[in-house]
């Protein structure tokens, strides 16, 4: 094996190395003929034929967008039959953004499924888009377009596009020399160069002219690049000068004369420590100390800046150019006397069965903890599993001599590396570095696996990392199920069964979500079948209603015993159906009906009568009338209500009640007469009280009359007499 430091190149005080991470799987792809868009964090790569170059067209004239993994495995392709694509790019959730000339942005997932579209505004539509930048904003992925009138429109988050117009640059009537988006302090600004003038634009309509940072006289800034973390900026001038400084132009680190006035094909930062320019056949890396490294390339390449380095895609290979991390340098630098290097040596000697191992260990005895730590960290920075293994072996060897070493970092690194190695595998093709994973976080990585439909791997990762089921395995299973229901060629029954088999006792699974997905795909039957597995009625009902299965929704709501749900459905039905149909629907479900009756009693008494009428429930109808009668103040209304009640009672075959109401009508009339004659209140007294009052007042004759009229029994009458006298 070649020595580890073989591919190291010094750049000032530090080393850079370029490692091949994949031999690309694609065949017959000449990057020269394509526009390339690669997502950061080892994401997918999209290719579309470069229309500015002449190629022999084979087959269809329609362009095709190919989507590959970082390892060059084709994931999908999109036959483009929409407008002219200006720019391709990826959002942070790995959605492909295709920016068209008319300012509309079409969003696809990595499988080439259309997801949504949004527009960059009418002005962009009318004036046509001529250039576009996709950048990381504080809210997500941002997108800025420049129209042919040189106005810039920007959205900060493509998931919730809110278009902002950037300030106009005065007197800009030709394409700017270069422009770039800098996103800092929760704000995205545009840095634009008009020849040798620099302008900083924000969306508040403000622009500020920046002082020229370059010490020499230049005519134009022809290229600029912002580092991954938005802190550093590189400017390239028409004189071949490369300026490196902070993105606010406050500080300059160096000016480097490339002696090549031709603007580079691509200018990109390698992490935060160096800037790489790409000209025909040459890659030039310049550090902030005016140091440089030159690499020759033999085919067209595409540079993908990463958090901690730069990925270089060529026709055949995929390389990673990055600064050699200091821990790795400690361990592997030739002649290093760092404890990590000693421990590594010791471990190698030990494996060779050489007593020198002991010597080395003795040398670093008091710094063994540091040594172990360095080896662990260094393992994390290595791409090759064999090197990782050797470093970890050294770390574990060193651990043997320590009694109180915390095993946690070692175990965690082993786990992380195992996950990283498995996603770096050619078939998956996500070449993440340890630092990138730390930034991206494990849940996001799992999401990305899910996005690639690598369900088994995602589940295994979750299980391996012992993630809680609810946020790990069951979430993935839910995604899997949602994917499954979209397979329209498979039978409903089969899908429902297979989903249930896999998901059966996993906690935290929401069947309703899956069913909602199925419904979205127009598979109502499947959705209903899936909903049957949903234990929470509160989840079932809204979806059933949405799918128009109101009857079923109502039945489920009633079964749940949750009255809120029942009300929701009942009210929904009432709005949707004609009155007759509505009443017919709820009559079969007593719970729903009684709830609705309760509601009507307070809110809608007319409806109440309708309901009773429909049910032939004359008894209740009559009761209701009696109640109404007593709530009325106008006498004729009261009597009318009572008479209606009497009729209803008769219909209900409640002769007793009918008779009583009839008597009450008579009594009321009697009392009215009394009031008129005697000018005293009698209304609403009971029969007994009326007679009793008359007796007290000495109107014995009237009392006697009432007694006869209403056939008051003797017994009562005499009690009354006794009590009143």
């Amino acid at each position, binding site marked *: 094996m070649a020595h580890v430091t073989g591919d190291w190149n010094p750049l000032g005080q530090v080393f850079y190395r370029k490692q091949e991470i994949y031999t690309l799987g694609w065949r017959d792809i000449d990057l020269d003929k394509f526009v390339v868009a690669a997502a950061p964090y080892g994401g997918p790569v999209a290719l579309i034929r470069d229309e500015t170059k002449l190629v022999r067209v084979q087959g269809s004239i329609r362009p095709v967008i190919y989507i590959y993994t970082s390892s060059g495995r084709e994931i999908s392709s999109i036959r483009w039959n929409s407008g002219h694509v200006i720019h391709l790019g990826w959002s942070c959730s790995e959605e492909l953004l295709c920016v068209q000339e008319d300012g509309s942005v079409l969003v696809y997932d990595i499988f080439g499924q259309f997801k949504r579209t949004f527009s960059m505004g009418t002005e962009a539509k009318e004036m046509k888009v001529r250039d576009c930048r996709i950048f990381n904003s504080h809210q997500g992925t941002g997108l800025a377009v420049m129209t042919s009138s040189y106005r810039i429109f920007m959205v900060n988050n493509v998931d919730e596009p809110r278009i902002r117009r950037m300030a106009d640059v005065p007197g800009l009537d030709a394409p700017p020399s270069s422009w770039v988006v800098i996103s800092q302090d929760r704000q995205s600004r545009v840095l634009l160069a008009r020849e040798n003038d620099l302008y900083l634009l924000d969306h508040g309509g403000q622009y500020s002219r920046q002082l020229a940072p370059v010490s020499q006289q230049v005519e134009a800034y022809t290229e600029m690049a912002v580092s991954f973390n938005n802190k550093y900026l590189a400017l390239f001038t028409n004189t071949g000068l490369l300026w490196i400084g902070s993105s606010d132009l406050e500080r300059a680190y160096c000016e480097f004369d490339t002696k090549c006035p031709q603007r580079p094909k691509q200018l990109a930062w390698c992490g935060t420590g160096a800037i790489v320019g790409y000209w025909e056949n040459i890659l030039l890396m310049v550090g902030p100390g005016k140091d440089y490294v030159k690499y020759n390339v033999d085919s067209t390449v595409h540079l993908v800046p990463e958090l901690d380095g730069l990925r270089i895609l060529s026709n055949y290979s995929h390389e990673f150019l990055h600064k050699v991390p200091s821990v790795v340098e400690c361990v592997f630098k030739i002649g290093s006397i760092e404890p990590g290097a000693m421990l590594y040596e010791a471990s190698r000697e030990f494996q060779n069965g050489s007593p020198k191992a002991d010597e080395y260990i003795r040398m670093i005895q008091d710094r063994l903890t540091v040594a172990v730590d360095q080896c662990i960290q260094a393992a994390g920075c290595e791409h090759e599993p064999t090197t990782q293994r050797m470093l970890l072996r050294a770390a574990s060897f060193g651990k043997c001599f320590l009694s109180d070493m915390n095993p946690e970092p070692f175990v965690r690194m082993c786990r992380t590396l195992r996950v990283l190695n498995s996603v770096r595998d050619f078939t998956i093709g996500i070449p993440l570095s340890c630092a990138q994973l730390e930034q991206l976080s494990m849940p996001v990585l799992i999401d990305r696996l899910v996005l690639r439909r690598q369900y088994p791997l995602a589940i295994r990762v979750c299980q391996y990392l012992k993630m809680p089921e609810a946020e790990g395995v069951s979430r993935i299973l839910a995604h899997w199920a949602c994917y499954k229901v979209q397979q329209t060629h498979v039978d409903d029954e089969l899908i429902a069964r297979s989903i249930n088999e896999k998901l059966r006792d996993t906690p935290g699974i929401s069947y309703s979500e899956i069913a909602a997905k199925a419904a979205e795909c127009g598979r109502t039957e499947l959705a209903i079948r899936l909903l049957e597995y949903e234990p929470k009625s509160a989840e079932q009902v809204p979806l059933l209603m949405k799918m128009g299965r109101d009857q079923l929704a109502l039945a489920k709501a009633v079964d749940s*015993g949750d009255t*809120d749900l029942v009300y929701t459905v009942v009210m929904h039905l009432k709005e949707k159906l004609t009155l007759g149909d509505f009443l017919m629907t709820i009559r079969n479900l*007593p719970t729903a009906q*009684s709830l609705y009756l309760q*509601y009507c009693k*307070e809110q809608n008494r007319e409806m109440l009568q309708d309901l009773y009428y429909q049910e032939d429930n004359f008894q209740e109808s009559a009761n209701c009338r009696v109640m109404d009668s007593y709530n009325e103040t106008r006498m004729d209304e009261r009597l009318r209500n009572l008479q209606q009640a009497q009729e209803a009672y008769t219909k209900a075959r409640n002769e007793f009640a009918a008779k009583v109401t009839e008597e009450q009508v008579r009594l009321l009339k009697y009392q009215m007469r009394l009031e008129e004659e005697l000018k005293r209140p009698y209304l609403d007294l009971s029969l007994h009280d009326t007679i009793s009052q008359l007796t007290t007042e000495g109107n014995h004759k009237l009392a006697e009359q009432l007694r006869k009229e209403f056939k008051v029994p003797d017994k009562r009458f005499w009690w*009354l007499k006794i009590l009143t006298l």
Partner: protein
Amino acid sequence: MAVSAVLGPKLPDLQYLKRLARDQLVHLLESLPGRKDLVIDPDLMTPLDRIAGASLLKQHGVDKIFKLERTKIHGGCDQLVYLVRSKLTTTKLIADQITADIRDARKRKYKIIMTPRRLQVCDMVLEHEGVFGLVSIEELHLDLIPLDRDLLSMELPQFFRDYFLHGDQTWLASIAKSLVNIQSLFGPIPNIYGQGRCAKMVADMVDMMMSELGERQSPIGCEIGHLFLIDRDVDYVTPLCTQVTYEGLLDDIFGIKSGSVEFGPDVTGTDKSIKIMLSGEDEVFRAIRDRHFSNVFGFLSAKAKELQTSYDKRHNLKSVQDMKQFVSEELSNLKKQHKALTLHIGACETITKNKSRGDFEEQMRTEHGLLEGVDVRECINFIEESINRQHSRTEVLRLLCMLSSTQGGLPSKDYKSLKTQFLQSYGTEHLLTLHNLKKLGLFVEQQAPDATANKLTDKMAAKLTDGMASLQLQLQLPKKSQFRAVSRKLNLIPKSAENFELRNPNDMAYVFSGAYAPLSCKLIEQVLQREGWTGVEDIAKLLPGDNFVHLKAKSAKGKASGSNPDSDKIVLVYFLGGCSYTEVSALRFLGKQKGYRFLVATTALVNGGRLIESVSGWK
């Protein structure tokens, strides 16, 4: 604790519930910063006292406190917090008040706190009235309020009307939730028994809610061993009876509201009313609350004498040291007891005055007659006379319902005649009340086996003298009256009602002067004893609704999981639709007899009067 040593297994501390509710209320109040006025649902006034006093509310920014009424709210702050039961009527009232404010161009911030939970239908009303956008709605999970160490109440008297009369299941979820809360505080309850349709639904909902929460192993283990859910319609007779235990009488005569009672001037002997909290913490009250009334006065006078001797101790205090000790330790306690004693003696006098009312004796005789099923005709006559004499409507209805419930309905003729008389006395509007009672099965007509028999009975009854008629009644009753059958099977009526030992009772029936032991409590006793319904199926068959039982403790795991060893003796009885103080007393007695400790939870505390009033068709 000495008390628990005497009373057996220790009860879980119910005060947790109170603290939880209070914290939540404070949180809700604080979420609206600044001064605000609080408008309280009249239904919640007394229950709220149990949770948070006025001073606590003031501490958290409440300026003025209003009662929710039909009137407008004048003046006050520009922030208004409504604390209400989630009911249509109250929501409508609030909507009206807000609309009135809008009409007066008054700008206020409104927050509605609904308890025990927010209801969709209330939102709908607010929407309908066009004020939904103006209010923020929160919920306060105020379900079971601890009224005593062993007594919990939802204070939701309308549940009885809403569920049993209207079949409205809205509150069931809240009841289930209250049980879930209990279980999350005191651990899952392994054994669950139930009787009734509502009980079954609640148990199912609790099951579902618990499974949604997941199998969380609660750190407390389980403190409650058994849960008994019982529907009120299983036993209507017990709450209808006139209560004769001390606490029951206090409720019947003075009315206990959320565990406190207000004594008027006739009790206090001054011209002021005094409101006291009735609880087991009060030593005197604890000793007399469950006693038969005849046994209270003696105790109180003995206690008074005892107090006097304690006071007298001060005459023979020898040293300054002794005196200091007496003053600092005993005196305040004595004074407190003295005060309580005076009040209870006053209350006893008022009760005695009430009882010596002319026909009280006769009324009791009637009730006992109905319970035992003897001299029913005389009973009917008494009720009829009460109607004719315009006695309290509620009292009469109570007796009517008792008559019907114990006899399994009334013969058609009596039914009609009593109804007519009743309406003549109290007004036709009570047609609705009677209808409601019929719907509940509280006051019903006997279903004649067939028409001819009915006619025959009519004719015979007309010919026969009164005494014979009652005989006739009895002859046809046993077939009909389920109460009679259950009563016989559960042995509810003691053999010897005379010389029944009331002083040191050995039978639960003492709570009704030895005439009757509460059906509900006897049923609970039987089921607990048998750990299920086996052996009492024939009784259960006669009761409305289904019974069920879930036993989990049988598995060895349940026992071993470090739960409180006493938990097996702790029984939570949940009355759905209300329970009476007499039933609480009976359960306490049963606990002492069999070594259980009962926790009683209920939707509301009822007595015959309130039960009837709550379903009155006319308000």
